[in-house]
């Protein structure tokens, strides 16, 4: 335990004083502030004609404003944060020849990797919590709506999911830093992974869905099942990307009016009527229930990533420095 806390403390100090971290933090902070401001000032107009608006506070985070919403921003650029914190965790020590010295101290070998992961996790948490708090504060000033207990708990769940999401990328980048000797290689590999999962999987999903279950307009109008099948295939493929998992989970959590992650629904006339007549928000427990599989998968891939780097590191020979 002693080893983990010592290493964690040192890594935290390193993170907070490193230039790249400070740069990235200011970037994210600036973007959050700007988004919050644009959304906050736009909200007043948006809500002008709504009789009884609900969950206005959450709209600070979900409303796209002019460009994108905060949660989209975190979904796309959050991974970079995880990568920056972890891509040189182990191989930097290896190339500076401090690793063999470190593991010859009376600490368990896993303390090294646990301490580093923990330090990254703490940094990520501090960052996200402060961003959410800043936006909340700014929102209070701009729109003057106080969040209720449900909104606060939704925000809290959102934070937990986001921390796990970025921790997944931290895990990936630590894995690369264990596997690759050179710092540049591991950074590039992690960024390649990020680009692949964030941008190409979404694109590839529709292409592959077209190939697997093609839809042509003439037949689709006769047989809507075809459309559904196409949509399902696309969705299954795109769920490979943690970004899809994350965005779906967070939109449901932060927007109580959304009831499903599906984008195409088969509805009878009565259902359609009831939806348009009784536009009521989902209770929190139901929202959580819908995204539960997403949450479990996110946590699972994070743990798998960490466990892999853990085992690889434990089995690595020290001397190959």
């Amino acid at each position: 335990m002693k080893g983990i806390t010592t290493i964690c403390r040192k890594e935290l100090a390193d993170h907070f004083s490193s230039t790249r971290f400070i740069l990235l933090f200011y970037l994210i902070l600036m973007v959050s502030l700007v988004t919050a401001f644009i959304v906050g000032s736009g909200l007043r107009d948006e809500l002008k004609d709504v009789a009884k608006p609900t969950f206005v506070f959450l709209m600070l985070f979900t409303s796209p404003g002019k460009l994108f919403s905060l949660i989209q921003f975190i979904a796309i650029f959050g991974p970079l944060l995880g990568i920056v914190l972890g891509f040189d965790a182990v191989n930097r020590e290896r190339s500076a020849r401090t690793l063999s010295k470190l593991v010859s101290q009376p600490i368990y070998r896993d303390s090294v990797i646990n301490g580093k992961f923990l330090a990254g996790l703490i940094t990520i948490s501090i960052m996200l919590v402060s961003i959410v708090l800043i936006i909340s504060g700014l929102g209070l000033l701009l729109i003057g709506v106080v969040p209720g207990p449900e909104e606060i708990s939704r925000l809290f769940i959102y934070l937990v999911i986001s921390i796990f999401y970025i921790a997944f990328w931290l895990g990936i980048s630590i894995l690369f830093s264990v596997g690759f000797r050179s710092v540049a290689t591991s950074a590039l590999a992690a960024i390649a992974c990020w680009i692949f999962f964030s941008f190409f999987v979404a694109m590839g999903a529709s292409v592959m869905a077209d190939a697997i279950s093609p839809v042509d307009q003439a037949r689709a109008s006769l047989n809507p099942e075809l459309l559904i099948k196409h949509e399902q295939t696309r969705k299954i493929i795109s769920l490979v990307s943690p970004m899809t998992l994350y965005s779906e989970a967070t939109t449901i959590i932060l927007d109580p009016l959304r009831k499903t992650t599906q984008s195409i629904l088969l509805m009878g006339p009565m259902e359609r009527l009831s939806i348009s007549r009784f536009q009521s928000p989902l209770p929190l427990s139901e929202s959580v229930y819908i995204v539960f599989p997403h949450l479990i998968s996110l946590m699972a891939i994070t743990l798998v990533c960490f466990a892999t780097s853990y085992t690889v590191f434990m089995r690595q020979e020290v001397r190959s420095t």
Partner: protein
Amino acid sequence: MNGLKVIETQDLTKVYGEEVAVDRLNININEGEVFGFLGPNGAGKTTTLLMLLGLSEPTSGKARVCGFDPTREPLQVKRLVGYLPENVGFYDDMNAVQNLLYISRLNGIPDDLAGIKIKELLKVVDLEVDPRKKVGEYSRGMRQRLGIAEVLIKDPQVVFLDEPTLGLDPDGSLQMLDLIRSLSQDKKITVFFSSHLLDQVQKISHRVGIMIKGQMVAVGRIEDLAKEKFGVGQEKYTLEEVYMKYFKEGLL
């Protein structure tokens, strides 16, 4: 030297794939002894050190360091053994005191005690510290001295030094040798060190071991080895001559 065995190995063997890095090594090292570990590059010296530290698992055979089995009880061994790797690295963006403090924390030394110790040690290794100067700006000799201080901060019973005088200027390596000698004489620390500079080894070692291609071909006092190779009355041969003789035979 009261004959207590600090390091004992029994047929210690390490195999990497097809290659036998260390072949059935048997050595006994006494308390307070300075043991010079010689051999060409790639002979398996570092591998042996790593196995004795519990950083690398032996393929077969047993080792005991300070009464502990390095494979099973690595933490106890690492608590008592200081290891200075070849070309030791530091956290270059921290100063010397911060580097030492980190190592002392990893050893579970409370910070207030560590502060006192660090001051003492910097005097022992003769390193003047400017707190504004990061370790990255240190010269080779200063880094090596800082490395020794890091090894000594845990009050070890045994120190493993891998090429401690490599790349030092003549004055620096003389100081290093004096330091090693005083560790053994004044603090009763067992020193197990590897080096290629045979005249230096001859100056400070009580006994030497010569390892060639993973096999320990000779262990003993330099005079005894000379006697064995060149006959009785030939103890005046230097370690260099003895070593070369062993080396040539070992390659055959």
